[in-house]
């Protein structure tokens, strides 16, 4: 299978940088492609919004093509609400929700969902945690009620807490065997100065996981366990009156307390620009080094984010094209190993032979500089925008993808109109803003680097990269270990 991801689909755009106009290739052959309207028809399913008197929210997207309902119960209690000295509280609390309710254990709870033909899933993000599932319509009211009970009536069993905590520690240890994960953490430290970087994902550190107590986790969670911090998301074969009826029954007497919701924590300021520019992670015995480059990504829904997302798409396309052609032979970078990750960070990474680390870094830096200082073919910008329009529609196609879109809106505290507005903004987006975003995001001063590799790889990296702002970190330190 060719690994053409959505972003990699743009790979062919790279030819636009090399030659001013993309050759259509079909003008000189004996067969010619048909003409068709170039304007893409757009549509998004409507989203209905509701709010109960006590502040509990509802977002609903109806889709009656299948007898299915997807649902999520969101609580504004994410890892940014963790105490600064106790990272990992929200994640542990979320995991405890699935460890049993009403004094029962995890197996009992999963069986109750199983009786409804579904399995609950948990998500924990910076601003919220949520429980979600998809069920056949006949079971939807019961499933929603069970989600509410799961959120409100966790058993909080001590033995379950010990097991969950032990699993998290094992997981963190297991992740340390992944060079890709390590390079991401190195970049996080460079971009945010996060210390240790693993906490930026809402994970605990070995120290916090060892010392957190069940009561601390439970009490912290209880502060935000209230209807005015909750939002219900529904997609699929459900009408609004049904949704309201199901929620009213599922709440089962849950009322908001008289005191107001605790204020949202102030987002931490980015530390002064003395963060490391280059993080080196020694890893003896690693057969392939990993090099990563990244920078700050604007949050979803902010004015700067949309052009930056287009800029990222263009950059990935151009890089992939370069990797498929010149860099494979001249820089030693293995093609098609670049990835991007959205959220707080945009990043790219690639695996290289240790002996090729220096020239790979040089080649990539020069290539990035050429893109940033060069002139983009307008067709690249236009094509990227067309792709983004279609992707936005596609992301809302189907019950579960639509539920993900609703979760994204709630996480960013955006109203449902934000989705069609995003479509409109994309249609109007000026190509100059995309180019500006490209230059801003990928200029040398905005980028941080991380190299994970053996002694030979790091030696070559040091020779190639600027001397200022270089730090060396062990993999375990990035995970918050000693």
């Amino acid at each position, binding site marked *: 299978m060719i690994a053409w991801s959505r972003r990699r689909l743009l*790979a062919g755009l790279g030819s636009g940088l090399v030659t001013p106009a993309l050759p259509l290739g079909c003008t000189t052959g004996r067969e010619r492609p048909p003409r068709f309207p170039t304007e893409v028809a757009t549509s998004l399913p409507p989203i209905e919004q509701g709010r109960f008197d006590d502040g509990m929210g509802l977002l609903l997207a109806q889709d009656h093509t299948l007898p299915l309902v997807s649902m999520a119960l969101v609580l504004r209690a994410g890892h940014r609400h963790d105490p600064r000295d106790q990272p990992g509280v929200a994640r542990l609390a979320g995991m405890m929700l699935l460890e049993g309710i009403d004094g029962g254990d995890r197996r009992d709870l999963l069986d109750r969902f199983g009786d409804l033909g579904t399995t609950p899933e948990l998500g924990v993000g910076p601003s919220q945690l949520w429980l979600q599932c998809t069920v056949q319509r006949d079971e939807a009211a019961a499933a929603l009620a069970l989600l509410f009970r799961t959120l409100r009536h966790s058993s909080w069993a001590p033995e379950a807490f010990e097991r969950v905590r032990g699993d998290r520690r094992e997981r963190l240890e297991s992740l340390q065997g992944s060079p890709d994960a390590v390079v991401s953490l190195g970049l996080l430290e460079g971009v945010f100065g996060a210390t240790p970087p693993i906490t930026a994902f809402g994970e605990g550190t070995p120290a916090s996981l060892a010392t957190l107590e069940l009561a601390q986790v439970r009490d912290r969670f209880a502060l935000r366990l209230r209807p005015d911090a909750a939002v219900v998301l529904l997609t699929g074969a459900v009408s609004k009156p049904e949704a309201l009826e199901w929620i009213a029954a599922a709440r089962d007497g849950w009322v908001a307390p008289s005191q107001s919701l605790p204020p949202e924590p102030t987002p931490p300021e980015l530390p002064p620009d003395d963060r490391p520019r280059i993080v080196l992670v020694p890893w003896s015995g690693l057969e392939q080094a990993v090099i990563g480059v990244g920078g700050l990504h604007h949050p979803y829904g902010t004015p700067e984010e949309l052009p930056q997302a287009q800029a990222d798409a263009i950059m990935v396309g151009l890089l992939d094209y370069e990797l498929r052609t010149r860099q494979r032979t001249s820089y030693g970078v293995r093609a098609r190993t670049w990835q991007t990750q959205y959220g707080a960070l945009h990043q790219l990474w690639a695996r290289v032979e240790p002996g090729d680390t220096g020239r790979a870094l040089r080649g990539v830096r020069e290539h990035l500089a050429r893109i940033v200082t060069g002139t983009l073919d307008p067709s690249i910008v236009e094509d990227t925008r*067309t792709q983004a329009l279609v992707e936005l529609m596609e992301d809302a196609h189907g019950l579960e993808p639509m539920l993900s879109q609703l979760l994204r809106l709630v996480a960013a505290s955006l109203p449902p109109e934000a989705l069609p507005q995003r479509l409109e903004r994309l249609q109007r987006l000026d190509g100059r803003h995309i180019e500006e975003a490209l230059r801003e995001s990928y200029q040398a001063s905005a980028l941080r680097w991380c190299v994970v590799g053996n002694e030979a790889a790091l030696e070559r990296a040091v020779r190639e990269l600027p001397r200022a702002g270089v730090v060396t970190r062990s993999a375990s330190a990035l995970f918050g270990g000693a």
Partner: protein
Amino acid sequence: MTTLRPLCLIMASLVVVLFTASWARASAPLAHERYALDNGLDVILHVDRRLPMVAVDLGYHVGWAHDGAQPGLAHLVEHLMFRGTRDVEDGDHLVLLQRSGATGVNARTEDDVTRYHALVPRDALPLALWLESNRMARVRLTGDHVAQEVQTTVDEWETRVQSELRGLSHESLWNALFPAGHPFHRASPTDIRRLGLADAEGFVQRRYGPANATLVLAGDLPSDVRAQVELAFGARSGGEAPVGVVPQRRIEAEQRIARRDAMSTKPFVLIGWLTPGLFEPGDAEADVLAATLDGDRLRTLADRHDAGAILELEVGQVSLAGQSVFVFAAEGTSSTTPLRMLAVLDAILDEVRAARLDPADVVRARKRFGTDKLRAVQRIDQRAALMQAYVASGRDPDWLEHDLARYAAVDVDAVAAFVRDHLPQERRVVVLSAAQEPS
């Protein structure tokens, strides 16, 4: 290409079970028209107007199981089909579709079918059809392109096998289950590097024609869609189905493979058995067993036998035409060893063989399958892919009702019988992967 990936991925693709009153409704998502062009092209049309787009899915009835003495050839040709035609420059297939707003432009080589698919804006359907038709008949193969794509497919092998934490363990299991000469044996980099231009030309000449293809169009179809299909494909000809493969093999004695994962901090155990092929008797029982033994239940069972030995445990059936693979995959905690983990897995299997599974759990698993089956046809591209899968197995595109019905007789005794008949200790391959040496 179907691969033996970490089981979390396998689980996502498992066939699911249902026998509830919603059968008739479940069938509606795949309502379709089917007809054939004079040249033999099999055409399936499915209308869904939720999105102003169309899923275009062209399947050639040839896959990696037909490679025979040229392992890797079907996959290599899949790559080459993106490298230009006599009318479209190298790379422009993607560029043209991308400019039209198409997404998901990709191809997939499976055991018995190679599918080219894209999700295109409805107004760009004529372009997508023209591009598929054009490369069906007029692909331009060159020695340079073959050399480049050989390297790319080798890169993919390295990414999938060498760079994945458990990739070499999975590859070891697969090739022990299907040794050299078996149609399911995986092409190695050495095999791939042996392939040349003449191999690719011969393959395309024989297999890539309308008489060996099925075109599925799903979505916001225009009223003249039949005319569009005729215009694009009507003048093409050729396409010969490969000789069917008979992939039956039987393992006569347990085989153990001991290895060490250089990058892993945890031990890992894989157990694989050869099981009945896709849609054959036993296939549904395997699926139900896998769904009943979800990761959480397995973990509970494992803890009962040896608390703290197993960190994560997954089980799944990789269903293929003619012969499938059933796999147990377990990651251990730092303090355990592969052999200790194997003892736990054997204890769990003994329980299942003795029919000690709770019948209620089997019922829950079937009900979850019912939900999951509908979840798997939420989108038009998913519907197109499922219809292709049914057609590839020689069934009706809307075989969903039958697909679900074959699970109706699966109960706890049937599952236990499956384990006794198909998962015996003496007819399996075990891969015992130790963690890296402590530094």
